[in-house]
């Protein structure tokens, strides 16, 4: 069964045959996979999903692949959704849950999108995976390409965190550090993609790639026992993840997995140093003004977000909000999450938790409402952000006296 038979422009609705193309030839609008939802509704069921693999592929019916699409699979997805009562108590949120996407194969949500994109690349007989990346995507493309025996060429800004550079290069792909910011890298890749027959996951594979993020919404609802949460908080970089989470929520009802349409409010989180979407939300306008990013949250540092307009629209349509936190708040939020829930997130997660706190303070969440925050990447990738705040409590000689001295002066707590 062909679940998707065409691609459609989100702006002007012109249609195209399925292939490695990403923009409308007429208006440059992004292309979107068109599904046969009625056909999917006939074959999909909660039982079939429960019997599937514990990965994103349990939702294969709602992904832009066919039965014979080769799967490039490291086991992305179906990450834990955990209650977070201690963080909830700190922030004054009654019923807080965290989607711990740091537990993906390359430790960020990007594995969801890359698994879909490179599977599709295989279907199109493309042999090289490529991307412009702020780091997490680079890690994921390099790892998935290695697993699939594909070539890879990934492009990053040259000022990325060491962890993200090493965790890409280790997989043996070509890694090109570009002197410039992410928007410069992205622009370069858009030009390279025109000239090389590669699967640029975020360029010519974008229509398929971005669909992988829908699985975050499916999993959240399934893991809550097939119930929608009242609120979801998502970080915004290009905006694609938020848009697709919202789309995923809508599809659950469309294909009959849920009896009613979602009423979940979707909220967005940005860093002050790169806040084009939050700024447009605050000003109450539709137009997202590009910015030159300057923030420690490098994985969210996209000054010209391609899906910013749609993310803004999705948030407003669901009754959500977008807020931002500065670099100090990001660091404090990383430490708070680690201290209360035992999850070490990268800077993007600090942004999400920081904005979660702000929304809670603003009274966004009513008593008893269920709130889910997406923790999308892990802390070992951005050690630089917290190095100054996460050091040995004491450094001592290997003697009992030296240790007891630390207790006496109160540096080490003498509690039970």
């Amino acid at each position, binding site marked *: 069964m062909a679940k998707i038979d065409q691609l459609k422009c989100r702006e002007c609705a012109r249609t195209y045959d399925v292939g490695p193309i*990403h923009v409308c030839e007429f208006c*440059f609008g992004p292309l979107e996979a068109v599904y046969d939802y009625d056909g999917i509704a006939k074959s999909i069921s909660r039982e079939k999903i429960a019997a599937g693999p514990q990965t994103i592929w349990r939702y294969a019916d709602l992904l832009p692949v066919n039965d014979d699409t080769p799967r490039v699979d490291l086991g992305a997805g179906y990450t834990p959704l955990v209650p977070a009562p201690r963080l909830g108590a700190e922030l004054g949120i009654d019923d807080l849950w965290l989607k711990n996407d740091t537990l993906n194969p390359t430790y960020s949500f990007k594995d969801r999108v890359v698994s879909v994109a490179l599977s599709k690349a295989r279907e199109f007989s493309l042999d090289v995976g490529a991307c412009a*990346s*702020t780091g997490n995507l680079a890690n994921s493309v390099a790892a998935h390409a290695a697993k699939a025996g594909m070539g890879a060429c990934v492009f990053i800004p040259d000022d990325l965190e060491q962890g993200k550079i090493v965790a890409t290069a280790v997989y043996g792909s070509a890694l090109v550090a570009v002197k410039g910011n992410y928007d410069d890298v992205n622009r370069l890749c858009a030009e390279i993609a025109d000239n090389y027959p590669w699967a640029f996951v*975020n360029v010519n594979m974008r229509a398929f790639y971005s669909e992988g993020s829908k699985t975050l919404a499916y999993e959240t609802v399934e893991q809550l026992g097939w119930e929608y949460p009242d609120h979801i908080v998502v970080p915004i*970089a290009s905006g694609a993840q938020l848009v697709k989470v919202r789309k995923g929520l809508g599809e659950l009802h469309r294909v009959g997995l849920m009896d009613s349409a979602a009423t979940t409010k979707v909220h967005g989180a940005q860093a002050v140093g790169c806040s084009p979407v939050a700024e447009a939300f605050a000003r109450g306008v539709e137009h997202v003004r*590009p910015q030159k990013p300057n923030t420690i949250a490098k*994985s969210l540092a996209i000054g010209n977000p*391609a899906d910013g307009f749609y993310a803004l629209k999705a948030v407003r349509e669901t009754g959500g909000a977008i807020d931002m936190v500065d670099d100090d708040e990001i660091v404090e939020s990383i430490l708070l999450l680690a201290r209360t829930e035992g999850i070490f997130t990268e800077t993007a997660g600090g942004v999400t938790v920081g904005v979660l706190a702000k929304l809670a303070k603003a009274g966004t969440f009513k008593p008893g409402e269920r709130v889910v925050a997406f923790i999308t990447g892990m802390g070992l990738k951005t050690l630089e952000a917290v190095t100054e705040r996460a050091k040995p409590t004491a450094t001592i000689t290997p003697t009992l006296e030296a240790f007891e001295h630390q207790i006496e002066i109160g540096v080490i707590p003498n509690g039970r």
Partner: protein
Amino acid sequence: MTVKVRIPTPLRKLTADKAEVEAGGGTIREVVDDLERQFPGFKERMCDENGELRRFVNVYVGEEDIRFLNGLDTEIPSGELVSIIPAVAGG
């Protein structure tokens, strides 16, 4: 003044598959008008019904996005390359 303009794949059907063309004009607006004269239909692809740059089209003068400069009225320094590039997703 004549400038070189880099054409992205989606627009090359209009330029007979040429990846780079020459156009006359001192500002982006003038260049777009000249491209429309050379390749009828070009302007409609670049600009919406209000004459503003379409949301998903990025235009660069040299290294800089014209949205950081003066938009369509951005002046083009002599010898600088103009690039038209579709917006792409990211992360």
